[in-house]
């Protein structure tokens, strides 16, 4: 991600990852662009959090709107497919430019920092938003406007609450804070009255899901053998204890078969997101860094969770030999070639034709609760645009994130953000035939999952954690010490970028 890199994306999972694979010359050029943008800081917007003030009229319709999108995300194909209909219904042309992850982030940041953005709509990965809260247009009043929503069914209450609050609802001047009730039905008035703002509309939601070889789990021979060994039926594991048994049962190295894959490689989207999932499932804080910038990566729950993870690799030996370097692509390759009975990733899986098997999906197992990591994307609008462009850009993103458009994007594997779209997917025989029970499991996962920590300079902050987790994987006797060291390094990093109250949670 591919990119690579960080954001766990189905596109990345399909091998089109946006992992960082730039040549040095590209890196230098991007750095130059970033430096150039920084020179324009004097021209940038004020620091005061702007109140949402939607234009009272639509104003002149722009000849076209320019949109920057993530080429590796599955919504890109879907958006491309529905843009002609958007033009028919709204009467405005949207020109979409797709970019790989790193280039997209650099371009987005450079353009928004310059104060003169050349796009009307930006797709935004959620960890970018804490840095961007002052340059994005607050949209609460737009959602409430009848003029701007004419002919569009905005229905904010249809958005999956956890996804909407995690992705789009921010306290502009204190972006590290999470909305106090992330399970409440989305209500614009409540959001504003709580002092929060809506800084975009969510379009894509990726959550960690467990995929398993349904054919093996349903095989009478395997079921008999499992019962003989463990004294219980072979079922899809709901808990980590069950998971270990099942993984051990299917681990047959002489046949090139392993119980499970893990995403243990040293990247934010791999080991850190696995860590988030494990910590939440062991009862810890699934955000890892809380709203008061307390670092919860070395709590008893976190240590127990990562010791268990490392045990999967070193003690139970149920993972392939590449476990501590594996990312999305390696996990997919292992599972699709029939070398693992279970895997976890961020999109529907497939098997090579020679494997002759079938796939089912389940929630990530739990120790005390389910808490899969999810990563989301939203469409945002720059604050520094003329009022009419903002109004039309809003109409475009409201239309694109509406239920009808999202349903039309399902065949291209949009990971939807609205409950009604998931309901449609469950009832649609063609979608079920194509993706099995993936969509119901994704919806469940989004309902119980955890998004990323909300900190500025996100990659910088989590880098010590990524390193510490990977080091712990490679020194299994010392997991607690590695996590405690990572917690201190993370705190130091937070302080260095201005979070003076950062602490280590115990």
């Amino acid at each position, binding site marked *: 991600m591919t990119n690579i890199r960080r954001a766990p994306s189905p596109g990345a999972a399909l091998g089109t990852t946006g992992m*960082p694979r730039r040549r*040095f010359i590209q890196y230098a050029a991007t*750095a130059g662009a970033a430096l150039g943008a920084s020179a324009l800081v004097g021209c940038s917007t004020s620091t005061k959090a702007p109140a949402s003030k939607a234009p009272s009229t639509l104003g002149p319709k722009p000849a076209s709107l320019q949109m920057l999108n993530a080429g590796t995300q599955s919504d890109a194909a879907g958006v491309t497919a529905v843009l002609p209909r958007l033009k028919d219904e709204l009467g405005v042309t949207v020109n979409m430019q797709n970019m790989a992850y790193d280039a997209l982030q650099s371009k987005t940041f450079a353009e928004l920092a310059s104060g003169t953005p050349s796009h009307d709509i930006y797709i935004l990965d959620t960890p970018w938003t804490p840095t961007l809260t002052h340059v994005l247009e607050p949209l609460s009043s737009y959602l409430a406007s009848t003029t701007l929503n004419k002919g569009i069914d905005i229905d904010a209450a249809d958005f999956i609450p956890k996804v909407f609050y995690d992705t789009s609802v921010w306290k502009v001047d204190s972006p590290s804070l999470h909305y106090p009730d992330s399970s409440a039905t989305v209500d614009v008035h409540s959001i504003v009255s709580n002092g929060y703002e809506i800084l975009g509309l969510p379009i894509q939601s990726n959550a960690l899901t467990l995929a398993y070889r349904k054919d093996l789990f349903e095989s009478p021979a395997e079921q008999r053998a499992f019962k003989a060994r463990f004294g219980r039926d072979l079922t899809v594991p709901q808990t980590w204890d069950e998971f270990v048994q099942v993984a051990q049962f299917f681990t047959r190295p002489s046949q090139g078969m392993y119980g499970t894959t893990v995403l243990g490689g040293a990247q934010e989207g791999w080991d850190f997101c696995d860590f988030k999932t494990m910590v939440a499932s062991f009862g810890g804080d699934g955000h890892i860094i809380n709203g008061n910038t307390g670092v919860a990566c070395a709590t008893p729950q976190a240590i127990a969770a990562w010791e268990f993870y490392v045990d999967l690799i070193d003690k139970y030996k149920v993972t392939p030999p590449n476990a501590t370097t594996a990312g999305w692509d*390696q996990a997919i390759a292992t599972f699709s070639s029939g070398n693992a009975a279970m895997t976890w990733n961020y999109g529907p899986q497939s098997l090579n034709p020679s494997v002759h098997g079938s796939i089912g999906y389940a929630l990530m197992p739990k120790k005390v609760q389910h808490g899969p990591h999810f990563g989301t994307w939203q469409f945002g609008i720059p604050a520094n645009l003329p009022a009419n462009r903002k109004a039309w850009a809003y109409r475009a993103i409201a239309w694109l994130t509406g239920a009808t458009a999202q349903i039309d994007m399902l065949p291209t594997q949009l990971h939807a953000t609205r409950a009604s779209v998931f309901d449609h997917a469950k009832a649609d025989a063609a979608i079920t035939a194509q993706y099995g029970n993936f969509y119901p499991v994704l919806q469940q996962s989004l309902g119980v999952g955890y998004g990323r920590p909300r900190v500025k300079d996100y990659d910088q902050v989590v880098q010590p954690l990524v390193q*510490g987790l990977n*080091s712990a994987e490679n020194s299994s006797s010392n997991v607690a010490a590695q996590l405690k060291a990572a917690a201190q390094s993370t705190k*130091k990093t937070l302080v*260095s970028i201005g979070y003076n109250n950062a602490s280590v949670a115990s």
Partner: protein
Amino acid sequence: MTVVAGIYVFYISFFRVNGFGQGNQFVGFGNFQDAFTTYSLLGNLIRTIAFVVLAVGIELAVGGFLAFQLAKRLRGTGIAGILLLIPFAMTPAVSAMIFRILLDPSSGWIDHYLRSAGLISQPIQWLSNPQTAWVALVGLDIWSWTPFVALILMAGIQSMPRDVLEAASLDGARGWTHLRYITLPLLSPFIAIAGVLRTIQAFQTVDSFLVLTNGGPGGSTTVANLSIYRLVVQNFSIGLGAATAVVVLILLLALTPLLMRIIGKYAEHERGAA
């Protein structure tokens, strides 16, 4: 162009830059302090220097050996010369991806053939262990850049004055004596040029680190350029990234007169010899 950009990088390294509304804040040497105390710059620099010394040293030795073989103009050396160009011509990120696939302990060819040959019983987890990860990174650099060194040195070998070589042979110079007192001195300007160019290039390496290890396992293969990439490109931490870049620049500037002196010395030597 170079001077203006360089001055701006130096200037901005004293600021905490926020391009999103909070303006620039002068922090003096704060970024430099953070770079060393919080972002492990010293360790990253030491790793960078170790990588450069090791990779360039081996490339000069292997490249020299290859150059002598290719300069003999034996049967097949023409094809070998063309084959040598392949890794040199390949985009570094692609080379790193290929290495990553080859080194995969589950499905990579390298572990497969090592096991088939009975040299190992268990797959080597190349990128999971700091030592083997460095072997992979240095190996990739050697694979990619040795042809470049070999081509420069081959040009040097082919341009050696025949009369000097023949006179030395007539005087009884053979084997090591011939190499030590005749061939190497004549080749030294080319060795110096190859060494200097490769040293500067090796300091700039980032692609293979990004793709192959991303600085892991843990932070054991994080070099200065990878750190700059993360700070500037991924985090937009322009001031901190600029401070890190300034330190690397100072290191290179300190190294440049030394490298220029090496070239100059051997160029003088060649002129003297001629």
